[in-house]
């Protein structure tokens, strides 16, 4: 009994050590992917978010050809950093629509004038309700929508320059 007690602390510590090591070695998974990926877009109709772009309805996204749906906001700094990559995708022939989250029309106009406008249509999601329906947890995020209006792929965070080939591939795969 005494013998057992003597070695008990070491055994307990070994357990803690394994727990710590497993917690440490596990990849730090802070990305929360949407449960909506693979499903049809939720139904929504959003008012226009910019003065020179039309409003956005979910069925307009099912055009028979894959499109990119970008979730952004004028108040979001990573979104400004992402703008050049979206313009590059636009030049590569990608059709991009957007949802502006918790924004105001003047602010969106100013943002687009400053960082460029790769979008065909921009809907204003003033209360984040569509964002939540999409299963998006922040800005910026981008969804690849296939020709039938299904979410084929979700990209969490800003699109970096070296993400572009991968995004193009995803759009190609969604055909």
């Amino acid at each position: 009994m005494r013998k057992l007690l003597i070695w008990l602390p070491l055994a307990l510590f070994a357990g803690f050590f394994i727990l710590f090591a497993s917690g440490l070695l596990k990849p730090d998974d802070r990305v929360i992917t949407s449960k909506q990926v693979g499903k049809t877009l939720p139904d929504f109709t959003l008012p226009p978010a910019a003065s020179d772009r039309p409003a956005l309805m979910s069925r307009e996204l099912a055009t028979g050809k894959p499109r990119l749906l970008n979730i952004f906001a004028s108040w979001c700094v990573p979104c400004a950093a992402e703008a050049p990559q979206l313009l590059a995708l636009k030049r590569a022939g990608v059709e991009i629509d957007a949802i502006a989250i918790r924004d105001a029309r003047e602010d969106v106009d100013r943002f687009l004038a400053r960082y460029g406008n790769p979008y065909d249509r921009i809907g204003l999601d003033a209360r984040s309700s569509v964002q939540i329906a999409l299963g998006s947890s922040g800005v910026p995020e981008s969804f690849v929508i296939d020709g039938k209006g299904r979410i084929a792929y979700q990209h969490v965070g800003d699109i970096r320059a070296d993400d572009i080939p991968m995004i193009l591939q995803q759009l190609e795969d969604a055909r």
Partner: protein
Amino acid sequence: MIAEAGLVALWLAAALAFLQLGLVAFGLAGKKSELLEAVRPVAVAQGALTTIAFTALIALFMRSDMSVLLVANNSHSMKPWLYKFAGTWGNHEGSMLLWVTVMGVAGAAVALFERALRRDTHMATLGGQAAISLGFYAFLLFASNPFARINPPAADGQGLNPLLQDPGLAFHPPTLYLGYVGLSVAFSFAIGALLTRQVDASFARAMRPWVLAAWILLTLGITAGSYWAYYELGWGGWWFWDPVENASLMPWLAATALLHSVTVLATRDALRAWTVMLAVIAFSMSMVGTFLVRSGILTSVHAFAVDPERGSFILVLLGIYIGGALALFGWRVGAVREGAPFELVSRETMLVVNNLLLSVILGLVLIGTLYPLLTEAFGHKVSVGAPYFDRIAGPIALILMIVMAAGPLTRWRRDNLAEVGRRLIVPAVIAMIAFAAVAILAWGRIGVLPFLGLVIALAVAAGSVAPLWKRNLRRTPLFTWGMVVAHLGCAVSLAGMACDSAFTVEKLAAVRPGDVVEAAGWKLRLTRIVPIAGDNWTALQADMEASRNGGPPVMLHPQSRFFPSPPTTTTEAALLTRWNGQLYVVLGQEADQGRWQLRVWWKPFVTLIWFGGALVALGGALALVGRERRGWLLKWRGKAAVA
């Protein structure tokens, strides 16, 4: 040059630690006295070198040397000097340098001042201290070099987290670290005693002052940290059960248990293996805490440096030191004879109960802190919050308080239950009166825990001064005074906690200038909102007049501060302290139509929490001085008698 000098000093200190370990190992194994002769000077030199390295880093921060990466990342030339100075340890590398400096200086102090310990145990202790230091030197030099340069130098620094730009930073982390890392001495003592198989009363008497000193500083550090969080974070709370707070509480719980068991060992030569175990656990908890904080493995408001690579390094150190110490314990403690036996009704039993209860609380806090990690390993994400800790640890802490009142009234070795009961009559009567009084005043309005907390606080306050009754106060030894003051401090602190959770009044309002907010008899009038500028911040300040029950008005100035580097907003609560409580006012955001959000708390007797903490530390200091002075007096008399 300063950075290079600091780095050289750090490398030299590491080399000396290696030398110290070698001298002890070969000296003890080969019984070579001449090798052991060199250990103490080497330990002192090592302590001096760490101090030089730390001073060098302070100098770099004070001069805002932006060619040093750490300074560029964590300081700014426009900061007030106090935050340049304190910013030295307001970051990962600097705080780890403070860690090894405390270890080095503590080792030097053990080399210089420890006289009571048997020589071979003393040497083995210094060997243990050197061995632990080596790992942390390696961590600094290979994974967190504080003296790394950048080329070209930065134009200016990125600034210090504004939450840390507070005089609290100059006091809280160093005090906490002195206690936290000071426990390494107890750890090394345990290693030394296990190696030389000297676990007895004289060993305990030698170890006690070191444990006491670390415990006093840890108590002060935690108390200061609690008050700092209370006024800086602007939530009106004083303890959040955050993983990092728990990381400082767990070593404190272990050290408190150790402090009591070491007294049993010193006085009655009992609880030998247990005391050694606690000495190992106390510093192990410091290391586990550092691992939790530095690895970012748990999410915390304090997660300063989320870096899995550094986490792995510390984890390896944990494995070596804690695993090694526990293995040594298992291997050697069988050779430690059982200590003296004692009767069931005795001071020893009371102290064993104290130790058991503290260990249970420690275990519950540890499980609560690590539970999210445990469930995540099985694929669930949960978080454990304050309700768990309050509900689980609270009742046990209350039982512990009752034992604390009874313990000092029980005699060593053997006592009579009826006798103990008779000595507890006065505290028991006070408990009943308190129960009746609190019941009449607040029945049904306050929760069970605060209710019991108030009653027990009053009874324990009476019980803790009971050991002084019928004694000649001038002849009462200073260390007895120390115990009384420390126990009284616990009661005072408990009273503050209970009052805060039972009677706090909170009021949220949106007001225009000229409007009045009323809360708990206070009338607060918002005069105006003015922009003001400080050293490295600008703020919106509310000018307010507060008066209680029609008394003369006092000006209050809560602020919402904006710091440009790094861009952050902090709330600076306005505090108004009265003898019976504190008024706590926070200025929030601007609401619609020129109205401003205000959050007002009246917290009766909340300051007792920290006053009690300070009393506990003061009690520890009295006990330390009392014991040491007695040692000096005995030695002096012995010399006089020989002469």
